[in-house]
């Protein structure tokens, strides 16, 4: 580890010491956090950048960027192969990323962490291996009405291939997951429940402990799309007792191009391989090939080595800040922003579930989401406008597009104020 990085880690650790036992807003030093993110220093159209598109992708702290640069500059090589010094160090760095992730989500072992290209590939991996091997005609997969396309389409493809039945848990008008309705959908034919932990389109936090308990009572496995949860709250996969948990690095302050499938070892090791190639084999002859155990069985080819190092650094960063502190900060922002935005005339918040994360999707009278996005952009504010890759839930609310502000650990109340001011310009221009 570079001395500079050590210093920065110590600096971040100090924040935690300062805030021990105290989750108040003032204790979480957001200005010090912001100083870690070089990209936030810029202006756009002459206005300070206000980045409120964290649910799409988050920005990267210097600690992640530096860790990746250090890897490329000092110990980059291929992993798990060479006998030489660099290959050993690269393997150590890569596997350290796996260990950090395992610890961060409290997996039972490092072998339960499969690296993928992202959450999308993680879900597709389960559909293509577990799904193809163990699900057949008439078996049921249950998803919810507020899934991202990445947790809908792989199951539809499996339905078309294997004849499984896809069932959808409804939500209410506030975006709450309807647990009673879910319970009614569970049958002895239900093999898998695949639901989001936090909806990217509505901000709803689903009642995961209950979802898992009810599924397991019926003998079904549970796969969770955890993309929006990992960066924002403490996730303990063993306490939740989920069978699979999928997430992307780039939404949790790490690099693009890498994600994770957590799976219970005993399940992963019953699943056939995903792709064939190097890295995933025990031995190969033209007659027969035997495969390694998980996770390597699912990691054919040269993996995203430096990205794993970067993801590990992102985990270090989040742990140093403390996920409880991050969650408390964002929960304060959500409450503040909800109150401020609700006071904007003609604005409606889409998704007002009882349990919500820092995502606010909204509509305005006389202003289409795109027009809102374009206008606030000129005030330096980055929001998402569109269907958020979750068209079925948009249809559920009868809207084609919403504007969405989604918060990260570096956002401030002042930035919420800038958004609210920019929305006044929307009203001024579009009436």
């Amino acid at each position, binding site marked *: 580890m570079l001395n500079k990085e050590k210093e920065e880690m110590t600096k971040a650790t100090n924040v935690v010491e300062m805030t021990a036992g105290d989750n108040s807003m003032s204790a979480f030093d957001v200005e010090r956090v912001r100083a870690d993110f070089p990209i936030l220093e810029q202006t756009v*159209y*002459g*206005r300070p950048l206000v980045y409120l598109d964290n649910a799409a992708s988050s920005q990267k702290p210097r600690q992640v960027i530096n860790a990746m640069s250090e890897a490329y500059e000092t110990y980059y090589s291929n992993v798990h192969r060479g006998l030489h010094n660099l290959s050993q160090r690269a393997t150590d760095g890569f596997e350290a990323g796996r260990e950090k992730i395992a610890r961060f989500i409290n997996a039972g072992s490092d072998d339960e962490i499969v690296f993928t290209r992202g959450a999308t590939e993680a879900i597709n991996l389960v559909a293509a291996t577990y799904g193809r091997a163990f699900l057949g005609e008439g078996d049921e997969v249950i998803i919810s009405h507020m899934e991202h396309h990445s947790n809908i389409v792989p199951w539809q493809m499996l339905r078309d291939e294997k004849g499984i039945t896809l069932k959808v848990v409804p939500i209410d008008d506030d975006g709450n997951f309807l647990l009673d309705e879910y319970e009614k959908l569970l049958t002895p034919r239900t093999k898998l429940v695949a639901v989001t932990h936090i909806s990217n389109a509505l901000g709803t936090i689903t009642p995961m402990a209950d979802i898992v308990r009810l599924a397991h009572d019926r003998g079904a496995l549970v796969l969770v799309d955890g993309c929006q949860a990992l960066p924002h709250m403490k996730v303990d996969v063993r306490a939740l007792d989920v069978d699979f948990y999928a997430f992307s690095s780039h939404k949790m302050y790490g690099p693009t191009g890498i994600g994770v499938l957590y799976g219970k070892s005993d399940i992963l090791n019953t699943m056939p391989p995903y792709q064939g190639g190097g890295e995933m084999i025990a031995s190969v002859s033209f007659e027969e090939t035997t495969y390694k155990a998980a996770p390597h069985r699912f990691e054919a080819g040269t993996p995203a080595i430096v990205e794993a190092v970067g993801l590990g650094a992102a985990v270090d960063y989040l742990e140093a800040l403390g996920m409880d502190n991050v969650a408390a900060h964002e929960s304060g922002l959500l409450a503040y922003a909800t109150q401020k935005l609700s006071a904007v005339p003609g604005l409606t918040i889409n998704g007002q579930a009882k349990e919500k994360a820092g995502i606010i999707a909204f509509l305005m009278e*006389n*202003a*289409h*989401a*795109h*027009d809102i996005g*374009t*206008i606030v952009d*000129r*005030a330096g504010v980055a929001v998402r*406008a*569109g*269907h958020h890759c979750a*068209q079925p839930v*948009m249809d559920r609310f009868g809207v*084609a*597009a919403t504007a969405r502000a989604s918060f990260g650990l570096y956002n401030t109340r002042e930035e919420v104020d800038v958004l609210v001011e920019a929305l006044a*310009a929307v009203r*001024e*221009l*579009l*009436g």
Partner: protein
Amino acid sequence: MLDDLRELYQEVILDHSRNPRNFRHPGNANCEAHGHNPMCGDMLTIYLSLDEDGIIQDAAFEGKGCAIAVASASMMTQILPGKTVAQAEKLFSSFHDMCTKEDYEPFDTDDSNGEDEDAMERLQMLSGVRQFPIRVKCATLAWHTMKAAVAGDGECPLVPVSTE
């Protein structure tokens, strides 16, 4: 901040988006296509009535979209009646250039008659999108769909529009 935005959201455009003209499903349309911008979910259906000589007698539309997409569709349906398909396509080409090219010259009279010049003058209202490259797709969705309708494609999944 507001200058570029005022250029984009001119009163005429806001009027067309709030009160779109020819927003209906005509019974006698013999060409139609469904245009969809998968990036944002905007959807427009364009209906055209072509006579035997290939002249557009009526143009109308339905759908959902942002102010720019709806205003552009509304203005297009006012401009098209009386034009041949070839003229309509040529207008689209000029309009596309107007939306994307800094050096676009509004009134190249070499090969256009007075009517087309007049149409281009009206479409000039939408030229503010040049400063907002991501919004060019909104302004051209109706025109792409019109082109698909006359070509008999039915569906028009919008391919990303080059902003070069």
